[in-house]
Structure formats: C-alpha cells, structure tokens
C-alpha cells in the first residue's frame, strides 16, 4: 500500500514495512524537546523509575533538547527554582542540547531546534509543547505531548500507544500577491477547516505555493497547523530544505530526503489558490474566526506584538522594519517586538532593523516567548485589544480574559502600528 509522509516516517520509526491509519505503534524517537515544563517531566520521570530498581537515567541524553523560553528571564522565584532544578538535571544526565537564557544561543524552542540543525527530514520529534508541529516544515513528523508522556519517552526512547493518524492533503496553488504572506495562508486555511477540523489528523502541504515558500514561511504553516487541531503539519522536504539545513543550520552530514508515494491514500484533499488571497485577521476569541483584513479594518488597537515561534524570524522583523522606516508608532499604541532567538536578535540588530523599530517607538524585548502566553511582560488591561503576529487569540491568552486579541501577519501589524487601528498594509498607512 502506498504511504503518506507521516505513514512512511512512522513505519520506519516502528520497524515496520508499512502502517495504515489506526495502527497502534511505539515509534522510536529521534528528538525529545522540553522547555520550562521539563520540571514537571522530571517529577513524572522519577515516578516511572521509582520502585523498579533501575537507575534514573534517560534513554539517550543526546536526543533530548531542553530550551528555556517560556518565562525568561524568570518572572518569579517559583520559575527560577524550576529552571535551577532543570539545570541540575541537565548536568546530572549529560544532556547536551540545552539552551540557557543567553543572547548567543538562547531563544524560543521552535526556532532553536531548526536553526541548530537538530531536526532532520523523516525524523520523529516530540515536544512538551503543542506547537511542536512547527518542525513538520523540515519534513519531520513532529507533535506535541504532555509531560507524563514525555517522561515515558525519556525512560523508553519511544512513544507508547501512538495511533497512526489519517492525513489531510492540503494543496496550495498560485502565487502570493505582494504584502500577502504565509501567515495569511494558514489563517485562511484554519478559518476554512475550523479549529477542530484536523483534530487527530496530520496535514501534508503540497502545491506550487507550498514549494515556493522558504523554510521561514513553511515554519509558519506547520506551526499553526495545530490551531486546526492537527497532530502535525508536514512539508515534503526538497532543495529548499537542504539549502536551509546547510546554509542556515550548518548541517554537514548527508541529508536523506523522504517523500510520500504519489498514490498515497488521503482522508481528504483540500485545495486552495492564493493568487487572490487578501491579508487575513483572526478575530477574538478563536483562531478560526478569520476574516479578510478589510472586515476588521478600523478597529482601535492598544498593543501591537511582533514575535513568537510563528512570526518572530528575521524576514518578519525585516517586513515590519521596512513598513515602519521613517514612520512613527501611533501615540495611542504600545508596540512590542521579541525576536524568536538570540541569533535572529543579533542579525536584526546588525542589519539595522531593530534600530528602525525602536526609533519608530517600538520596544524591543529579549528573545523568548515574551507576551505570547500571558505570563510576564505585555499583559493587557480590561477592555484593551492587541493585534499580534503570534498564534493564539484565546480568551485570557495574553494574561487578561477581559481583553481581545487579533492575529495577523507582520505586515498588517506594522501598518496598523502607524495608524493605531487595524489597517490593510496594501492601502498604506
């Protein structure tokens, strides 16, 4: 039987010839990622090993990655204590893919993994973070799991009781108009599929527009595929994947590619053409409440946010800087920018983008998850509205259930920063 990309990867990782949707597997893990929630994984790992008479050793310290990003620098003593506990564990276990709170090698987990070449086509990647789907951009089957499930992975090196998911083929044709971006494609798709449309399913991206996308753009689509409920969102690895891994991630070894069979069986095929796509906005309080920017234009905004694992990369910051160059952020708006990694921060600094943004009135924050999840920095007041390039607009996401969050591309965010209201970047500010 012909196989989808996910089926091929799961079959290889489970030592099987072929697998079909519904098959229950125990795939071997190539990379297991955690962040601050590693503190909970450590607790659960001790519980599993307790009373077995075995040493509490992880299965393979070279395959575990831990990145501090969600609450950096620590916002409370409780977090600081969790981080210390993880540091001690990292040393005791000999975990090498550990990224501290640093300007040289720190950043958001979903940026750190690709830019350091930790993710390869065909790999099985699990992470204690729902946006682990991001790594599908490089052709890895990558999905989010809970802390207890990760503890079992640390102990065994495989994921227990994985049910092979069916795949939805998403064919994206056409050529994106100017100032319309991969973020607009994925928002449009989520609006079409709904927030649960891909629950328990994998999305596999095809089509001329998918192939034309850089890895940075692909990361946006894979990242947000979980907002349609998807287990994972996969691109077929190609020359662009190899280029990224060689040039940006510094990978020296062979990079074997993997592709779905042409006659693979998909549960469903969704086709869109993006040649006439408009910039999109996800309105409060669900990510699938998506409208063309025109329908939300004019809405007053109190806080603009550019950053996150979705849109905090160099091209995103550049797009914002080019729109804000020589302009000012409206006095009624606070604009916050947090680059996705220390490397991106330094590149944006060297190329002058951060200077342009700060000069326009934006506050450039340290790289990390920043205000994306409402833990520290950039909380909203009651009744306020934020326009953000992040990936979730759930009630309370930015720390206040009495505030509203709209999601958009960096171009829409930057154009709106100038006017103080939701603005179509194609119309100019």
């Amino acid at each position, binding site marked *: 039987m012909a196989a989808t990309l996910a089926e091929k990867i799961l079959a290889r990782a489970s030592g099987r010839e072929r697998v079909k949707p519904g098959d*229950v597997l125990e795939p071997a893990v190539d990379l297991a990622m955690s962040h*601050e*929630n590693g*503190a*909970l994984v450590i*607790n*659960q790992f001790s*519980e*599993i*090993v*307790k*009373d*077995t*008479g*075995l040493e509490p050793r992880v299965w393979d310290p070279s395959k575990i990655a831990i990145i501090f990003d*969600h*609450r950096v620098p620590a916002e*409370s003593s*409780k*977090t600081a204590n*969790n981080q210390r506990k993880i540091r001690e564990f990292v040393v005791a276990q000999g975990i090498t893919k550990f990224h501290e709170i640093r300007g040289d090698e720190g950043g958001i987990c979903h940026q750190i993994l690709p830019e350091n070449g930790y993710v390869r086509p065909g790999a099985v990647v699990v*992470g*204690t*973070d*729902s946006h*682990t789907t991001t790594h599908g951009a490089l052709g890895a089957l990558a999905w*989010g*799991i*809970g*802390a*207890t*499930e990760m*503890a*079992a992975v640390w*102990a*065994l090196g495989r994921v*227990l*009781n*994985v*049910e092979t998911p069916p795949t939805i083929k998403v064919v994206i044709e056409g050529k994106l108009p100017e100032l319309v971006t991969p973020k607009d494609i994925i928002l449009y798709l989520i609006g079409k599929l709904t*927030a*649960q449309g891909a*629950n*328990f399913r994998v999305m596999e991206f095809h089509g001329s527009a998918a192939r034309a996308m850089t890895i940075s753009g692909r990361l946006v689509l894979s990242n947000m595929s979980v907002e349609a*409920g998807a*287990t994972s969102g996969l691109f077929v690895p190609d020359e662009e994947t190899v280029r990224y891994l060689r040039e940006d991630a510094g990978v020296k070894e062979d990079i074997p590619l993997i592709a779905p069979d042409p006659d693979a069986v998909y549960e469903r095929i969704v086709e869109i053409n993006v040649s006439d796509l408009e910039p999109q906005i996800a309105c409060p*309080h*669900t990510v699938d409440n998506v409208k063309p920017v025109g329908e939300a234009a004019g809405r007053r905004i109190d806080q603009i946010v550019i950053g996150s694992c979705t849109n905090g990369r160099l091209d995103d910051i550049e797009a914002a800087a080019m729109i804000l160059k020589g302009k000012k952020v409206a006095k009624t708006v606070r604009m916050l920018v947090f680059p996705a990694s220390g490397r991106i921060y330094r590149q944006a600094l060297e190329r002058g983008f951060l200077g342009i943004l700060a000069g326009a009135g934006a506050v450039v924050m340290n790289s990390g998850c920043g205000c994306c*999840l*409402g*833990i520290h920095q950039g909380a909203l007041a009651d009744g306020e509205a934020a326009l953000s390039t992040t990936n*979730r607009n*759930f*009630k*309370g*996401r930015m*720390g206040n*259930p009495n505030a509203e969050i709209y999601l958009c591309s960096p171009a829409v965010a930057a154009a709106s920063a100038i006017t103080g209201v939701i603005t179509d970047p194609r119309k100019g500010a």
Partner: protein
Amino acid sequence: MPKVVFKVGDDISTDTIYPGRFMATVLPTETPQHCFADYKEFNDKANRKELPEGGIILAGNNFGCGSSREQAASCIKGHGLTVVARGIARIFLQNAVNLGLNTIIAPDVVAGEGDELALEKGALVNKTTGKSFAIVPHAPARQAIIDAAGLIPYARRKLMEQHGKRA
C-alpha cells in the same frame, strides 16, 4: 447519580482551564486551586463545596484545545470531576487518559446544569430529560492506558519489560 455541576461552550482552551500565569505550579496537589481561575462561577462553586466528587463538567466541541500543559487535566482531576464533552482536542484527551481524568465523548449530548447523567448500556442517558446519546468509545491505544490506571504504571511496566525485569 452524577450531576452536571458546571457547563461551558465550544472551544474552551487550556488557557481558560489553566491560565498560563500559573504554569510554574506543577504539583497535582496544587494545580486544582487554579482550575478555571478566571471563571468566578466555578470558583464560587468550589468555595461553596458545590463541586462534589464525580460531578460533571459538560463541554461543547474541541474542549481543551491549545497548549500541551498537563496542568489543565490535572487541575480538573484534582477536583474529582468528570469531563463530558461533544468533542475533546487530541493533546488534552491524551493527557487526561495518561493522568486518569475521566472523560466521556458524546457528540450530540444535550444537558443543562443540574441534570443527572448516567452511562447505561454503552450510551449516555440524561436522566432528567430522558434523552439518550451515543458515546464514542476510547480508541484501543488509549483504553489500554486507562485499564492500566494511567501512563505512569503503564510505562513502568514497559520499562521493566525492556530491562528483562518482572513487575
């Protein structure tokens, strides 16, 4: 007979069930105090002890969407409640199974707060209205973990097998 003690709508995210600002709290003994932290109604009920063990949270579609944070499952479990939903998001459902939070998926369920629900012959019956609803059984992969009383004992057994030890 268990009653619906708290009713919510569709797409209730983990940010609503367990807000991000409490994520540094991880112990299952401590997470319940932040359950639905921004829902006054839930907290008033908890304070008035109106959330009896075995009581039901009734939810719409896509319950638990969003983050992988396990605290969202552990905080509800800590209150001793069961989740009955029209649909549950994948990661939340897996976390619930792993931690032993009781979940029932009934895609067409209709009930109000105070209604009594019971499982009878593989269906969910609203004893207050007399209506019966089909349930979606747990997939075998998850049922095996439920039968083992959670992922920790299940994984421990696998680990012992891997090392040629007997549990």
